[in-house]
């Protein structure tokens, strides 16, 4: 039986952790060692914006030890990531370089969406998860620097929001006033409430959630002592809030004693109690579930999935589409037109497979672009392409990387605007990305053109490649003179990109 030993390293805002796994067909993913070391990178990062030399030293020493541990287990592969803490830091590149030279570990900085996707994957392997998201759930991941809330409805992720409020960040913000107030819970609460309120108003509206799935530090300790759990391991939110209310008034030392923590003066305890309390109160779900997984579990799931060692029941692609639709809905740009465009684009994509050389992922991106191609109209009618671009770029979609969002946003922009030469956009994407953008934009243009009137006149669309022509066969009971007439303009840009001429062939239906 083939066993792969894999190590996952994560550099967080106050902790660096290493988890070693064995991945095998029989036992799936089994954790064999878990080592954590306390390094307060967040203190420098959130406070000063750069990570100082001393902390880098400490970090490198620990990573070196991790290297020794990995070598000790003779790991077959490893992945090392850094989170939020490195994203906001000015000297990130230098630090990564230092790490690589001194410890021979390659660390990649995760964008927020990638981070969330990994967290998400660590949950997706748990059987309980699928059941819970069917009934409506919010996955809340609380980190040192920030917090991520992802809403699930009927089994798919519909929106995910990143709130720059993490336990450590709260503490850093309030250290200045900590001396002025003996119990600064009220201050913490005010900070949190402001952010949660906005989220609730805009994103939570109308969503019914039954479960809150919480990941983060200290929540494990808080939930551990809970004796009265439901059969599926969840805790009734009301009971949880009651307990947290009791703790709300306690001092740090008393809390540490109750929770059996190693550090009696852990300054992060109080902010976390307040944060979890407010979250539980505001999100209004009936049950809380603490699965006890962390980012390292996500890293190994991601690796195992990519290398086809495990099989995910969950369809992450469906999430992306559901999120895109939800986004389009929010900007009132979702209609039957978008669906029609999406449908057409997919037909054309499939027909052109041999020519464009793009894969499954790009097919998905095309669909997202099609769904979102009109969202900018919400902001401005005349400037809609630019606005669409900005909106897409600014919105996180779980399951899409930052780069992919850039591609989709650009494809939507160049749907209306003429395609810019590579030199002008080389800052935001590489050549490969630019090629994908141009191809997607070209397909999108003609798909869009086919429903110029937004009346979904075409039925039963078929496309096939014949020589150097793409023949699109349509059936339409109505007049398609408009579409046919304006088609050549878009056809030209298509031909420029693919050297294939698209042609509409009408099949009369009576």
């Amino acid at each position, binding site marked *: *039986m083939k066993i792969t030993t894999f190590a996952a390293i994560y550099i967080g805002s106050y902790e660096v952790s290493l988890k070693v796994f*064995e991945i095998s067909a029989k036992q799936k993913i*089994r954790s064999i060692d878990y080592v954590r070391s306390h390094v307060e990178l967040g203190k420098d990062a959130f406070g000063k914006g750069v990570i100082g030399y001393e902390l880098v030293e400490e970090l490198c020493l620990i990573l070196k030890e991790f290297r020794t541990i990995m*070598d000790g287990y003779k790991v077959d592969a490893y992945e090392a990531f850094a989170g939020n803490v490195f994203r906001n830091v000015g000297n990130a590149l230098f630090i990564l370089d230092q790490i690589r030279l001194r410890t021979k570990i390659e660390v990649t900085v995760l964008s927020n969406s990638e981070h969330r996707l990994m967290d998400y994957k660590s949950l997706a392997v748990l059987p309980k998860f699928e059941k819970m998201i069917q009934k409506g759930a919010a996955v809340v991941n609380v980190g040192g620097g920030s917090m991520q809330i992802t809403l699930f409805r009927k089994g798919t992720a519909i929106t995910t929001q990143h709130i720059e409020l993490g336990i450590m960040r709260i503490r850093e913000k309030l250290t200045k006033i900590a001396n002025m107030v003996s119990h600064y819970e009220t201050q913490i609460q005010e900070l949190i409430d402001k952010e949660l309120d906005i989220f609730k108003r805009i994103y939570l509206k109308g969503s019914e959630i039954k479960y809150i799935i919480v990941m983060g530090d200290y929540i494990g300790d808080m939930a*551990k002592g809970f004796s009265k759990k439901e059969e599926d391991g969840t805790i009734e939110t009301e009971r949880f809030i009651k307990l947290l209310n009791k703790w709300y008034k306690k001092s740090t030392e008393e809390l540490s004693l109750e929770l059996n923590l190693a550090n009696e003066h852990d300054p992060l305890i109080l902010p976390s109690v307040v944060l979890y309390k407010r979250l539980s109160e505001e999100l209004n779900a009936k049950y809380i579930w603490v699965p006890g997984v962390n980012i390292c579990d996500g890293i190994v799931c991601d690796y195992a999935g990519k290398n086809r060692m495990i099989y995910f029941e969950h369809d992450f692609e469906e999430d992306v589409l559901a999120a895109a639709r939800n986004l389009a809905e929010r900007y009132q740009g979702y209609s039957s037109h978008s669906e029609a465009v999406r449908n057409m684009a997919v037909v054309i994509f499939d027909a052109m497979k041999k020519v464009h050389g793009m894969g499954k992922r790009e097919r998905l991106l095309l669909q997202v672009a099609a769904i979102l191609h009109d969202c900018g109209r919400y902001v401005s009618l005349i400037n809609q392409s630019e606005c669409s671009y900005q909106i897409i770029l600014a919105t996180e979609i779980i399951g899409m990387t930052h780069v992919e969002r850039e591609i989709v946003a650009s494809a939507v922009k160049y749907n209306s605007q003429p395609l810019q030469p590579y030199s002008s956009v080389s800052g935001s994407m590489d050549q490969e990305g630019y090629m994908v953008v141009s191809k997607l934009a070209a397909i999108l243009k003609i798909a869009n053109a086919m429903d110029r009137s937004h009346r979904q006149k075409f039925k039963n669309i078929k496309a096939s490649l014949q020589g150097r022509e793409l023949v699109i066969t349509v059936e339409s009971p109505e007049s398609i003179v408009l579409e046919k007439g304006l088609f050549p303009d878009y056809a030209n840009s298509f031909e420029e990109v693919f050297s294939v001429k698209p042609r509409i062939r009408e099949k009369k239906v009576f």
Partner: protein
Amino acid sequence: MDKEKDYLKPEYYENRELSWLKFNHRVLNEARDKNIPLLERLKFVSITSSNLDEFFMVRVASLKDMVHAGYKKKDIAGMTAKEQLEAINKDTRSLVEMQYSTYTRSLVPLLHNHGIEIISAYEELSEAQGEYVDRYFEETVYPVLTPMAVDASRPFPLIRNKSLNIAALLNKKGDKKEELEFATVQVPSVLSRIVQIPSSEEGQKAFILLEQVIERNIHRLFLNYHVVCAYPYRIMRNADLTIDEDEAEDLLQEIQKQLKKRQWGEVIRLEVEDKVDKRLLGILKEDLHIAQEDIFKINGPLDLTFLMKMYGIEGEDELRYPPYQPQRVPKIVPGEDIFEAIRKGDILLHHPYQTFDPVVDFIRQASVDPDVLAIKQTLYRVSGNSPIIASLAQAAENGKQVSVLVELKARFDEENNIVWAKKLEKAGCHVIYGLVGLKTHSKIALVVRKEEDGIRRYVHLGTGNYNDSTAKLYTDLGMFTCSEAIGEDATAVFNMLSGYSEPPSWNKLAVAPIWLRKRFLKLIKREMKHAQAGKEAFIRAKMNSLCDRDVIAALYEASAAGVQVDLVIRGICCLRVGIPGVSENITVHSIVGNFLEHSRIFWFHNDGQEEIYMGSADWMPRNLDRRVEIMFPVENETLMDQVRHILGTQLADNTKAHILKPDGNYEKIDKRGKRLVNSQQQFCEEARNALPKTVNVYQDRVFIPAEPVE
């Protein structure tokens, strides 16, 4: 709560030091036991002496420190440091008196009957013996002596801790004023204290003490002087190491510095011969800055630890117990793959009845096995040339990840530990030199092996140190297992000891200093709840000392609720039995035998779902709060039965066991009409009988022709 306060009343507790002195008494009782071979009895006297020495250097010294510092807080029995010192003084004097009366009135005459003479006064030597002694002095002793005089230009020299010295009053030859001068010479520790000399009678042995040899020839050291008188004396200094750890940048260096300092602490005891000259005593008292109550006048040879050497003299085997050969562990066949044996099931080891070899072999096999990835071990009080150290060094050289936690703060062993710790480092092991503020007392070894279906961890957990020589003298229990839950915990322990964060939760192990105390209290409380619910409830435990107030209070509460508590406690016991309404259900047995009892077992009835634990910790504050300890559950049914049998036998011991009485004294059990049970002897027998008899498999069926009738 009122109820809780009740159990903490000082009158419910015994002072720790006084309890220890009672333990030393029990050891001395072995020396007074006529049924024990003569030389073994001598050994016990020697042990009481060295025990007493250590007691003074550490416990009495720290009490004196407290008095100096003006520390007025009372201990759990309600005594201040000063009160304790007074009581200790009294008890110690009676102990010492009994020591010497046993030696002089019982043992020396017995030795005489067996043809062994120990000459304690050089005046008793025959002429031939005298000549021999003098020649010995000239050739061997004289070159090593350093006599030191004290006068205006030569201040009183620094006398070494625990050393035996001879003090003399001198008179300059021809000095009409007859002024007396003081001089002192150390009895060299490099030479043997007992010197064998030709016996005056055939077939007998004669020994003389080294100080007598010197005293006889002392005039040769001070040629221009007339020696007025010369008497031996011995001092004890404060040897408690208090290392200021937070400033100690390099723990290793700090210990090395302190080791040198150890020779020069304050003098806390002076032993002199009872016939000592008053003037001499006066000078010693003044120059050593010692109080009258700390002076002990001894009727006999000072420092009886030389009796340990007497135990080891050539021949005379009938005066000793035959040496016990530790038996093989039935489930482990020497030479076979030990990992395979462990995979078949958990294995229990009971030393010294069973050999310690499997543990040594475990590490050795791991060091040469290509599938082994890592070996981790905690080492505390390991012997210098230990085969374990050699295997660990070898493992590192073979490319394995070797992590060793060396405990440098093992009192009196520090020097030893540093040497081989450095040796391991050189070989490539990752050596962790102890933890700041904590002594690592846990005994755990972990081997990580990459096998066909993944990584498997083999763990050895024990109650005794990884020292193959003490493993033949101390009783200890150990367990081999490859259970995943324990393996995970073991990895977490070593991660924690390496400085990483503690694991989110523990599967099976209870670790001190954070979790162990709570665990014990929880287990005792749970038993109490069973008793309150009317169910059968008992706790049976064995340990070396019991002096933690919270645990004792919990036991009192449990006993009051109806839990039957039976304890086997070797040494210190601060709990009082038979207090009405408090400790009527508690019994305390103390076993002092040939082997030093050292194992720790904890057995909780838990309404039928019994839980049995073993561990490295006693019920003392230092174990629960200031040391890294591990307690582990025994879950394999067969092993549980074995442990139940061991503890049961010890509780039934009526030969070597003393029972604690409500008045605080220990008494031997009334054996009349009962079957004699000597637990240690029984275990020896059982270990021997546990091995399958070797059957001659080559015996064919053969018709044997009869011999012709002649």
